[in-house]
């Protein structure tokens, strides 16, 4: 039975349809694994009873031949997605015991496709972080171990989801990515993670961090699963004014089209300072694989790459400072009383938000404040325009861009940088795609000298996730990466 835990979604789907095992059996295997692996703290909330109930329903549907596309597959939901009647925390103390009376569009889409939710995964508070160390509910520990045996970060902010998928605590999971929060933890944990085009997945019901950058996406065992799951998550939602009113193409169909004749761009500016040599080597290897599979490798320039992170650290905190104003202890969540309303606000917010969130709220408030708007916020908006134009120009020459996902492998939790800016550099290779609103995928492609997973990133033009799946599949096959569960 423990072999079940190594199946991909597509394989498990096949097994369910061929009656090799039931959804209840599959779900029980995962629930047992969750119990065994509590120490990695991947979940904030486990919902075993609900999961088994749903699995039973799925088995009935499967028996009647009424299976939907993800029928009976046990997945995990990042705790940033509001789930009806189920506690949703965003990794923060300030939401208290908030139980949304509504279901986010994306988690609702998964539910309606028959997926069985095992629970809510841990995350950096309000998705602000790259190491899953800002959660009120404690750090998440990467299932992978370094040679020295130290506890490692799974990356963040979707660290709980990444650890769950890598460690066999869910067959797949949802993530969200504002500056790299799907791709970076995917790379650190040896799983596939895709941030689709901005507007592809509805943001309705997802606790907002930075509205112009946030996108939901799947975190899975392989590229096929990512395509399968994104197809269900994506789609136009009239409740989100920024949701694209475009048909969702069949991502699965793109998977085996190969890369023959495609032009793959290598942006020279992504050779950033401090990039580990082993990452550099993997990048070259990746280009070589694609060349051997028939693609043409072209050097491209994205001249404003260097300014992506500073731009992000103006815009994201600015939007966040406003998005997080609603957490005031009046209508839901944690409240710390005060003699006056302002005192109540201050007490609640100072106790309810963690240090990193408070830092970003303060930076965001500052860059929007009178006298500084033009110098910071407007300036960053303009640089964002230039970054976006860089990609538009590059995509006139190439079909897809290949980069590493992170400048280094996962670090040990006791080695975490104390300078927030050093921590921010984790997202240096991923954040541009958020600013430009274009899709990016991270694929596990090799191991570091210390035996840790490393990821390659593909970036595509807006609404062309298909190119990422096509090319990603070729990298995946060439890399023949062995997952944590396969070792």
């Amino acid at each position, binding site marked *: 039975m423990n072999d079940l835990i190594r199946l991909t979604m597509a394989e498990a789907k096949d097994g369910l349809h061929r009656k090799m095992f039931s959804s209840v059996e599959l779900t029980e295997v995962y629930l047992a694994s969750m119990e065994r692996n509590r120490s990695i703290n991947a979940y904030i909330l486990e919902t075993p009873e609900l999961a088994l109930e749903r699995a039973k329903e799925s088995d009935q549907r499967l028996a009647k031949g009424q299976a939907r596309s993800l029928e009976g597959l046990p997945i995990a939901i990042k705790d940033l997605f509001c789930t009806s009647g189920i506690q949703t925390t965003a990794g923060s103390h300030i939401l208290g015991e908030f139980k949304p009376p509504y279901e986010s569009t994306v988690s609702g889409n998964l539910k309606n496709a028959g997926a069985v939710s095992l629970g809510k995964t841990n995350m950096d508070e309000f998705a602000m972080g790259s190491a899953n160390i800002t959660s009120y509910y404690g750090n998440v520990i990467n299932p992978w171990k370094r040679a020295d045996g130290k506890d490692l970060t799974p990356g963040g902010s979707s660290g709980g989801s990444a650890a769950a998928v890598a460690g066999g605590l869910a067959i797949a999971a949802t993530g969200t990515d504002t500056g790299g929060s799907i791709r970076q933890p995917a790379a650190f944990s040896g799983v596939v993670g895709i941030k689709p*085009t901005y*507007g592809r997945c509805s943001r309705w019901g997802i606790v907002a961090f930075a509205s112009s950058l946030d996108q939901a996406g799947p975190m899975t065992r392989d590229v096929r699963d990512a395509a399968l799951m994104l197809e269900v998550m994506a789609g136009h939602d009239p409740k989100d004014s920024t949701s694209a009113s475009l048909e969702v193409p069949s991502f699965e169909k793109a998977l085996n089209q190969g890369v023959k004749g495609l032009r793959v761009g290598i942006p020279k500016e992504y050779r950033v300072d401090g990039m580990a040599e082993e990452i550099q080597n993997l990048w070259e290897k990746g280009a070589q694989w694609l060349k051997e599979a028939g693609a043409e490798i072209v050097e491209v320039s994205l001249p*404003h790459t260097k300014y992506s992170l500073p731009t992000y650290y103006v815009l994201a905190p600015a939007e966040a400072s406003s998005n997080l104003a609603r957490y005031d202890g*009046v209508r839901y969540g944690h409240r710390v009383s005060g003699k006056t309303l302002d005192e109540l606000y201050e007490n609640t917010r100072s106790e309810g938000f963690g240090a990193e969130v408070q830092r970003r709220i303060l930076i965001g408030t500052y*860059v929007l404040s009178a006298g500084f708007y033009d110098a910071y916020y407007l300036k960053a908006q303009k*640089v964002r325009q230039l970054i976006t134009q860089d990609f538009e120009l590059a995509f006139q020459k190439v079909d897809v861009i290949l980069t590493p996902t992170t400048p280094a492998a996962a670090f040990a939790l006791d080695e975490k940088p104390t300078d927030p800016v050093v921590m921010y550099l984790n997202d240096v290779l991923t954040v541009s795609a958020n600013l*430009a609103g274009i899709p990016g995928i991270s694929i596990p492609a090799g191991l570091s000298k210390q035996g840790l997973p490393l990821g390659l990133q593909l970036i595509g033009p807006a609404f062309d996730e298909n190119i990422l799946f096509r090319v990603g599949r070729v990298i995946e096959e060439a890399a023949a990466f062995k997952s944590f569960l396969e070792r």
Partner: protein
Amino acid sequence: MSLDQETVKRIATLARLKLSDDRMGPMQQDLNRILHFIDQLNEVDTSSVEGMAGVNTPSMPFRKDVVNDGGYVDKILENAPEVACNMFVVPKVVE
């Protein structure tokens, strides 16, 4: 640019965050590190560039003017820390 304590305090008040004295110093240092990092943007010539607020959605979609939401006062109030007479309760607001 660099933030003095006075400014940090003003910003904190605007954001309704209370910084105790022991948190003030480290917070000021962190904020200044971040601002220093952000200051790199000054290297970029943006004189002929327009600001960009969002991506991929050129215009706003419309909703029809129909009443299809609301009417669930219990759900609105069920998560509230303090409720009376079907309303949220806060310390007295003086105008």
